[in-house]
């Protein structure tokens, strides 16, 4: 058995990316091509283990001949396509999308958000002090993880991970419509009354920190969360025979959070409740 999945060889698609010739395997997206060429296109709702939902629209690029911009994360490269990633038109939409998100959502724990806001010259404050925000309080209804929907950009990744793409628990869905839409259990019931199995695979894919370990949430509240002081050790989960990889995030000799490598060919970053949250015995000294 090999760790590298081997498929039939794929035909290469040739197209033009920012004036340069680009070649990617058939079926690859514009984003794949951008990354291969070392171009940094911002993404939020795109996930390496999930089917692109292209809901956030922060990765839009200009495809010649297209009436509108195209989401790089899900538009497949086609032969002869002429793609521009840095035009004024594309950058304008990215700027406004980032601005809109930041004006309604708490992006303080979103990796790279501040960097992108600056890069695109986004100014979320210009929508005024009265601009409607999500206005959600953190939902702390269990001992394992917290749902802070004030930070939620509704990328659908947790819904997809909980649903038919990975876990098949279907504990959450998007409910409501438009600006009032929220990730929710049925009737907005607490997680403990829902179908949640606490695998934490939703936390694994959350791009903004809206979903976090209770331990991380509490430490952030207390001001003791220090990512720079943490070590990450990838090891093998000791519970069952599957042998999932777990990455232990350790601060001050305490496990503060557990993730799993997304490139693991078997689990793709997914764990169960034991691997994700069952580490307390390690700390009983």
């Amino acid at each position, binding site marked *: 058995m090999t760790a590298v999945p081997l498929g039939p060889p794929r035909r290469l698609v040739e197209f033009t990316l920012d004036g340069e010739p680009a070649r990617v395997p058939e079926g690859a997206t514009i984003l794949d091509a951008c990354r291969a060429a070392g171009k940094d296109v911002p993404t939020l709702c795109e996930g390496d283990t999930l089917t692109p939902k292209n809901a956030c629209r922060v990765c839009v690029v200009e495809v010649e001949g297209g009436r*509108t911009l195209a989401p790089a994360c899900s538009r497949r490269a086609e032969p002869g396509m002429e793609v521009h990633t840095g035009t004024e038109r594309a950058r304008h939409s990215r700027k406004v999308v980032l601005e809109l998100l930041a004006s309604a959502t708490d992006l303080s724990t979103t990796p790279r958000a501040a960097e992108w806001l600056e890069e695109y010259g986004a100014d979320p404050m210009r*929508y005024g002090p009265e601009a409607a925000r999500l206005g959600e309080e953190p939902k702390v209804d269990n001992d394992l993880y917290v749902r802070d929907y004030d930070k939620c950009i509704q990328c659908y990744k947790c819904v997809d991970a909980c*649903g038919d793409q990975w876990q098949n628990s279907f504990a959450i869905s998007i409910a*409501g*419509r438009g600006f*009032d839409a929220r990730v929710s259990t049925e009737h907005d019931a607490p997680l403990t009354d829902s179908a949640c199995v606490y695998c934490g695979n939703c936390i694994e894919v959350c791009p903004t920190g809206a979903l976090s370990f209770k331990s991380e949430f509490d430490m952030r509240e207390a001001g003791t969360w220090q990512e720079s002081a943490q070590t990450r050790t990838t090891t093998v989960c000791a519970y069952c025979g599957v042998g999932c990889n777990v990455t232990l995030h350790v601060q001050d000799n305490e496990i503060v959070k557990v993730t799993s490598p997304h490139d693991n060919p078997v689990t793709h970053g997914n764990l169960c409740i034991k691997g994700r949250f069952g580490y307390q015995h390690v700390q009983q000294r």
Partner: protein
Amino acid sequence: MDLRFGESEPTDEERAAVDALLGPPASSWEGAHERTDGDLRWARGGREARDRRDLLLPGLHAVNDRVGWISEGALAYLCRRLTVPPAEAYGVATFYAMFAMKPRPRKVVHVCTDLACMARGAAALRAGVEERLGSPGGDSDGVTWQEAPCLGLCERAPAALVVRAGPGGPEDTRSADADQATATADGAGAPPYTTAVVAPATAESVVSGAQAPDDAPAEPSAGFAVPQAGQPGLTLLRRVGVVDPRSLDDYRRHGGYAALRRAFAMGPARVIREVTDAGLVGRGGAAFPTGRKWGATAAQPDHPHYLVCNADESEPGTFKDRVLMEGDPYSLVEAMTIAGYAVGAHKGYLYLRGEYPRSLTLLTHAIGQARARGLLGDDVLGQGYAFDIEVRRGAGAYICGEETALFNSIEGRRGEPRSKPPFPVEEGLFGKPTAENNVETLVNVLPILQEGAEHFASIGGGLSTGPKLFCVSGSVGRPGVYELPFGATLGELLDLAQASPRARAVLLGGAAGGFVRPDERNIPLTFEGTREAGTTLGSGVVLVLDDTVALPRVLLRIAEFFRDESCGQCVPCRIGTVRQEEALRRIEGRTGAAAADDVALLREVGRAMRDASICGLGQTAWNAVESAIDRLGAYS
């Protein structure tokens, strides 16, 4: 799937409502009260039940129609019957404006506050209703009311729709077991489900209609909405107001089913060629060539193919499809049969907006008659071709008029648009090749087959051939649906409808369209002509506004509409429509330099919505406001 349905139980009435649609549950696995010995040995349901996911929306309707709202127990029971995760079903139910998840009175009044009604005094109506029934969402003596987007009754504006929940709703008659189920239903004694249209409405007539919907005066016939009714030279409207919409014989006496016979004589490929040669393009707003769509669908190797008729007419100011369906329902049944034959489909879905109760009654009747007479079913007209039509009701969501959102809605998912590609002709309804057409587009096929492509193409020219329907409303003397050959000008139409000399603005194409000045009379009402003039034909809305309604107020209503109707999937539309509304609210009373900053902000947000939104809703949400600023000088 190991689903968790919770502890909530349905009431007997809710159970009866669901059973009337789905039949009684086969086992306790599907929610039957009693657990039998057999249930302990065999678990049924599962995949078979899951394949009926598309019955989720009819199921939600069944409960909402019966009880007036959807309780936790009712939702759990429906989920158990269909093997749908409750969280997903909750997400679907909360997507639609007509469903309530909290207890509310059985009688609900939808008061239209949209553009055409605004021009005819909706503000006063709303205030009058509030005075009598309290604030929206309250309970006044068993009646609640809410503001509604356009109800498609613009020729009789201002309008209101009363819905009283009770037994005997539209979904009750769906299942063969329905009679049995309703006979045992609890809630006997509750008055039956009924609807009443109050238009033109006064606060008094709304209140009396709400209190006693059974006694509300009958609606005028569809012909009332067609000022040209009975005139010679009409094509699409020639039977509206002339034939009895309940009589198949009358339809046949007036030339009905001649086109289908002709289609069978020609064969599918020639039908498609004929429609292509006629130059017919979609009348829903996008103007895509119908023949090409059909050809592409017919050519797909994957099967089955589906035909979908988009009758989710929700663009504010649009009511042409309603008038066609209410005045000449058999023509749509016949046209759908022809389209199904051409694209190789054996099943057609007619997705009708939930706010059209009379269209629903008449179409359901027409389909039943056609089925009984062998014009639908296993052997249409004895030609060996099988085709049937199923009506699906929307539940109050403008976005479901977007073709892929409509598929999701039928499939029992949230009505969110899918990203394209793949296009519907490749992967549409249930992931199968699908041709989806607007009502008016389909009805155009009949004259094409009867009079020939050449004749059809000789009317108008270029992209715009054939007759076109226009929905004229607002400050006009004779509002209604007008049929004009492509090529007529805006001025001609305004004269026909007796537009007010005090008209200040004309909205073309509805909320997603654009404003023009009433003196731009020479704009040809064609797809090319309007585009050259920097505006759009859209769905054929021509809404005339005079000086009694302030333009900034109208723009704000348009912005509210888009904010309400955005599905929330993509960021530019979900948040952009909110910011647009906020900015318009800030500058409602301002002009010039005081508004300049916000106008600049609107332009930036509007541009991003247009460029980066997933679907047409977000892409057009800023059109009307932009045109009002640029063309009418709003806020300057």
